[in-house]
């Protein structure tokens, strides 16, 4: 998933919560042509505005509805709760961003055959009774 795609999902969440709670909100047009992290100061300001409006309603004693139900469907027909921005096992970081894809091990320090021999010896000593 690109940052732009994530941004679009977050925008839909903001819009939906604002609508459900009678908050006057129009998402601003994004002028950024390149990809982003999925968030930026403009998006953050919009989320902050909605939170402050919700807090005001709570303070005034009005009920608010924030949690989206499991059936919540995005504009493209997909379910928010079924989406994954990358594989759950990927937890590598570069400049605060997870790398997409599966877990990639670092390069080996030993030669392939010496490591294979070492591990063959190790695996032949494994016993099911040790569990």
């Amino acid at each position, binding site marked *: 998933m690109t940052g732009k795609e994530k941004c679009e999902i977050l925008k839909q*969440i903001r819009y939906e919560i604002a609508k459900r709670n009678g908050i006057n909100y129009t998402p601003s047009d994004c002028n950024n042509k390149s990809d982003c992290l999925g968030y930026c100061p403009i998006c953050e300001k919009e989320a902050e505005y909605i939170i402050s409006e919700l807090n005001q309603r709570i303070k005034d004693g009005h009920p608010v509805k924030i949690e989206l139900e499991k059936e919540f469907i995005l504009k493209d027909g997909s379910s*928010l709760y079924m989406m994954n921005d990358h594989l759950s*096992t990927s937890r590598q970081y570069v400049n*605060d961003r997870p790398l997409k894809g599966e877990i990639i091990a670092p390069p080996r320090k030993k030669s392939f055959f010496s490591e294979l021999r070492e591990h063959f010896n190790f695996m032949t000593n494994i016993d099911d009774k040790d569990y």
Partner: protein
Amino acid sequence: MIKTPLIGISRLRLNTDGNGITTLIAFSGCPLNCKYCLNPQCLREEGENHNYTPKEIYEILKKDELYFLATNGGATFGGGEPLLRADFIKEILELGAKRWHTTLETSLNTPLSYLEKLLPYINEYIVDIKDMNPVIYKTYTGSNNNQVISNLKWLIEKGKSENILCRIPFIPLYNTQHSMTLSEMRLKDIGITRFEKFKYITDFK
């Protein structure tokens, strides 16, 4: 509270390492030395990674409160080994982060006292089991897994069985599909019900 080194903060993750939309706080420092470590930067000397105070981290988390509340998401603490920073995490939670869903991604290979400090706050535990066979575990991580199993049993005694997801990886050259099955059986015996199995991708295809 003094600053603590992090290897990264990853905001607005969708249904990854925890419910809904989450922000992952990945701490530096780990008691293990895994052969295929995903984040070797977590083992760097302190001072080489970015340092934050609990308040600074809480302020970053708060920016995404709307999405946490909308999706029942929140903060995920990972690393490295987050339990090594239990006091620091407790402070973030006490500043207000406990009102969101909290997930701990851990090896559980630390003294029980660290786990005790966070027990009242954590909603979900994602436990990186590696392999239940002590020889495989020791060979792969350089440490033994007695503490992992004893901490896991303690969590179950505290009624947290349903809140634990055990990750069992296929680790090329260290375990097999058969040993993954044995690990799962052993974990079921002690009361674990939720599992995630996956494969480490290495150049040993």
